[in-house]
């Protein structure tokens, strides 16, 4: 394994990177088909990660149940049983009534509930954080309120100027800052790519030197 880690893993990212980058920049016909194969590999690996996720999940929660881990094993049972039930239903017939029922009436409801809770936490956070303790905070507060009223039809009813100022804030007002942040994110991604191809980024195959 250490030979694979030290040699093969070191050169695979370099080769893949070279082919994909060359395909992007250079008009070389034969490179296109090789790049295609590599892209398909990437998609297959993503799909394998789903299966890996399932195995890891079952293993870890199964261990929790086996060891009766305090405060958690009951929920692990629920996780495993739910997983197995929905999995079996999906295998039998992914378009069947039972599977669809589980999706519609359990998964959908729970997902929407958790996402909806975000609204409460945003208001709670805003009530605590949107305080005009200094001039910067006051400006942030005023801008925030204007944008809030821009998004809601009642804003235009209260004052016709809200959408005008709000659209400016969402457009030319924040674009320069946002573009800078996007540029920086791009630089960061390039650095990451460099670290991967030079073998400095070992996180994705388990760490270690």
């Amino acid at each position: 394994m250490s030979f694979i880690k030290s040699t093969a893993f070191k050169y695979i990212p370099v080769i893949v990177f070279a082919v994909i980058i060359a395909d992007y920049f250079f008009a070389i016909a034969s490179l296109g088909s090789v790049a295609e194969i590599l892209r398909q590999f990437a998609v297959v690996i993503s799909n394998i990660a789903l299966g890996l996720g399932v195995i890891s999940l079952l293993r870890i929660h199964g261990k929790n149940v086996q060891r009766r881990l305090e405060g958690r094993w009951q929920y692990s049972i629920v996780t495993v049983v739910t997983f197995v039930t929905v999995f079996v239903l999906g295998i039998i017939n992914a378009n069947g009534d039972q599977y669809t029922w589980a999706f519609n009436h359990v998964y959908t409801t729970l997902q929407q509930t958790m996402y909806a809770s975000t609204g409460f936490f945003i208001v709670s956070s805003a009530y605590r954080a949107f305080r005009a303790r200094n001039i910067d905070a006051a400006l942030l507060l005023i801008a925030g309120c204007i944008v809030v009223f821009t998004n809601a039809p009642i804003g235009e009813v209260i004052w016709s100027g809200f959408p005008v100022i709000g659209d400016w804030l969402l457009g030319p007002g924040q674009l320069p800052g946002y573009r800078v942040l996007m540029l920086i994110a791009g630089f960061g991604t390039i650095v990451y790519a460099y670290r991967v191809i030079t073998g400095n980024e070992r996180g994705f195959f388990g760490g270690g030197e």
Partner: protein
Amino acid sequence: MILKEGRIVAFVLLFGSFVLYYMFTKMIQQGKAFKIRTLAALEALPEAVGRCAEMGKPIFYMPGIGSSLSLSSGAYILAGITILGRLAGFAAKAGVKLRLFTVTIDAMPLIQETIKNAYAIEGKVEEYSDDDIELIANQSSLVSRYIGAVQREQPAAACLIGYLAYESVVLSEAGNIIGAMQISGTVNLYQIPFLVASTDYTLIMEELFAAAAAVSGDAGAVGPIAAEDVIKFVSLGIMILGIVLAPLGITFLVDLLGL
């Protein structure tokens, strides 16, 4: 023309960046020191652990969602795990329980190894337990599990560092409700305002990578960060030149960059 149209300058800039990264890495290896500026969030890690030690409470860590193999989230999750290593070292030294919640299944071996190594370096490998690392099925489940854990275990501090999506609002507010000290960091642009408003310290955008580089300390991590300063200055210069030339109707810069 072997280079595709419209990609010549991009090619030059990309490989020019790589050359710069290589040069700066070599300079560090040859002894030149580049100091990453003090990052308040990173400096706050021992303070967070100290708070937990005083109060006898655990510290929570969430390295973000997504997959470490993904282009959009992988780099940030791995950066979060690098910082986790330092936090784990502080926690091991202070005898503070470190609880980790993650949905990143493919990074689990790395997370376990990172924390175990940190404990081993402090000579406390027997205090490490896999049970303190919780793997949760998905994002929404993570939210409900984390909120419940925060309410029951009442951590004195929490770190949300990695690739964060809508859960950043919920998790940070859950920590605020119990008065926990919170350190966050993400590259996800539209989550940064929430984190800045809700947490005590935030690593914004590239600071996350810089923090990971500062923690790892190796030339391959610090060199590119230092080289990026040069790239940023060059970018700034191009922008200023563009701002000057555009009103004059001179388009050579736009045409040049479009080659």
